């Protein structure tokens, strides 16, 4: 099944390579990987989606912790969470088609962010399912180009996500002296 990890890493050169290399080295296929800044300077957050079972997920998590720049790993697969994907879709839209496409954009609560005589660029944010669905309905009009960010995810509620399965790690994390910089103010 698809497992979603939130990985906090030091924002240093080569960290993405270290994380990606671990997945390759341990023969896990990355379905999607995003990375960006967090609310804490010097800390980046990756959202990585991997197709593996529960044992694979545990093993991956343990291996990620062995990477020195990795500060925290949360498997948020089983945690109530919000997952979003962003897509830019360039669609051929001439004549009547243009009206139809604009109607579909309304239905999907997407936005048109660029207009040219032959095409429209549509921006949409949502679950991967919703975006897949929008792409499908746009496809007959001619999808010229598309780019998607891949999944970003966050646990619901005030408390930052923790690994669900192992309480000991949770307790250790809450007490750890160096955890403050990534664990947020709600712990």
């Amino acid at each position, binding site marked *: 099944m698809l497992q979603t990890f939130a990985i906090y890493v030091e924002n240093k*050169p*080569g960290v993405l*390579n*270290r994380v990606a*290399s*671990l997945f390759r*080295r341990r023969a896990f296929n990355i379905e999607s990987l995003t990375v960006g800044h967090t609310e804490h300077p010097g800390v980046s957050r990756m959202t990585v989606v991997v197709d593996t079972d529960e*044992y694979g997920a*545990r*093993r991956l998590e*343990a*291996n990620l*912790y*062995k*990477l*020195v720049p*990795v*500060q*925290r790993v949360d498997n948020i697969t089983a945690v109530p969470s919000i997952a979003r994907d962003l897509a830019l879709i360039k669609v051929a839209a001439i004549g009547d088609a243009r009206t139809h496409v604009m109607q579909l954009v309304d239905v999907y609560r997407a936005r048109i962010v660029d207009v040219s005589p032959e095409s429209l660029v549509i921006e949409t944010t949502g679950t991967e399912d919703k975006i897949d669905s929008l792409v499908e309905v746009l496809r007959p009009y001619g999808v010229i180009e598309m780019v998607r960010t891949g999944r970003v995810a966050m646990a619901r509620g005030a408390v930052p996500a923790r690994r669900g399965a*192992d*309480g*000991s*790690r949770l307790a*250790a*994390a809450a007490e*750890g*002296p*160096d*955890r403050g910089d990534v664990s947020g103010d709600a712990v």
Partner: protein
Amino acid sequence: MTLTGAQILWESLLREGVTDVFGYPGGAILPAYDAMLGYPIRHILVRHEQGATHMADGYARASGRVGVAIATSGPGSTNMVTGIATAMMDSSPIVCITGQVGSRLIGSDAFQETDITGITLPITKHNYLVTSAADVAPSVREAFAIARSGRPGPVLLDITKDAQQASCEVDWDAAEPHLTEAQDDALPGDGDHRDAIALINGAERPLILAGHGVMLSGAEQEVIALAERARIPMAVTLLGIGGVPANHPLNLGMMGMHGEAWVNTAIQEADLLIALGMRFDDRVTGNLKTYALGARKIHVDIDRAELNKNVRVDVAIASDLRSALTEWLRHVTPTDRSAWLTHIDSLKGDSAVRDIQNLPDDGHLYAAHVINDLWRLTAGNALVVTDVGQHQMWEAQYYKHQRPRSLITSGGLGTMGFALPAAIGAKVACPDAEVWVVAGDGGFQMTMPELATIVQEGLDVNIAIINNGYLGMVRQWQEFFYERRYAATPISGPDFVKLAEAFGLWGRAVDRRADVADAVNTARRQARAALIDFRVEQEDTVYPMVPAGADLHKMIRRPSPIVETAAD
């Protein structure tokens, strides 16, 4: 205090307690070498950078201290790759320092530039590209902390030439490592310990599987205490040899592919496996689908990633072994397990101890004889460093190690050419130890230029070449699994005695059983390094053997007429 990056490097090494480094100079590391002359650190000049890494590894394994290897950029650094991978697989703490081209040249394909941090990323615990003098001290501090902590392993520091040359103020206190909590030793849950203790107290046929982690954790006494208190027999992995004395009545011997038959049978018949600091390598489990099916399993390893990796266990504890065992010993109850122990004794049957001393001398020189003689003649007190192959397995079977860290061997990576340089490192770490290399004629030829290092450094290392004119273990697989088609396994070699003499060692060739003792004794009396070329039976075979991927209890047993008699 203002120092150059190169000076900071050596000062940092001194502060880590480093007294010896193994290295080879070159352009990009020259500033560091120039600064070295001002510091009281012994530098051992190697003949190939692979040798430097194996020496640092042997040094670390013999002493428990971090071994240090140093090389230049480009080929100097790439030559280290095999040694780094070897140290990674066998959890050996080494720090490798490489020079790198100037930071402004990085990425330009400059002369002797190579992306060694990229290359070694999957075979180091961590690595650093250091591009400023100010980063040298903190990087060295972190590198040593990482190499030593948790499950030990190699760390590489790639330091650009300009970082070595530039000067900066050093604040040693500020160089304190800032490793995150995730880097610290993992904490087990208390519940796990209670579950483990309940399983141990309730088991009828428990078996301890003792690995390298027993020694890395310094838990030798605790393992023996557990075994003795609860009357639990122990089996050891290849790298676990020495963690428990070979002659301990509860030590059954080595498990796995070339382990004793009764050990593997006991594993298959146990109702509880207590795996301590070992990682269920495929060479010890055989076919996982049929491995110890009747046994509950407890696994203690400091590396959380090893738990439930190959074998699914009932209780997995990520912990330092010694502290886990200390906790268990408070709650484990003395239990009579004589029925189980008697049963294992009966499994031994007439193959309990192959007393090969009593075999008639049929005019052939067998490797097992040589190694068994070496054990007797050195009273089991030598620090033996083996290469990889048949002789390695015979050593494990016939040299009875009583002390921790008295066998150094490349287990996980199986690196041929390991023995000679690793033995040099061991001798530098333990100058008072009687160090013996046991190597095949194939592996020995991979790193034999290090003989010159032995002589230049005036080291007294003894070398036993088990010379059968074949790449013996590969030949054995060809014999069993490839219908004796000996593709590329017959191997010639130099006259090893002349070679030894050419390098400045004492040398002798032996091809008769009767001459083994005199050669070994004479070698031991030499004040300098000695080499004995044991010209052994060419097509000899290591028994028993579990073929790769086969069920653990389905061993290829030793055929007659090689008789096994119970003795000792």
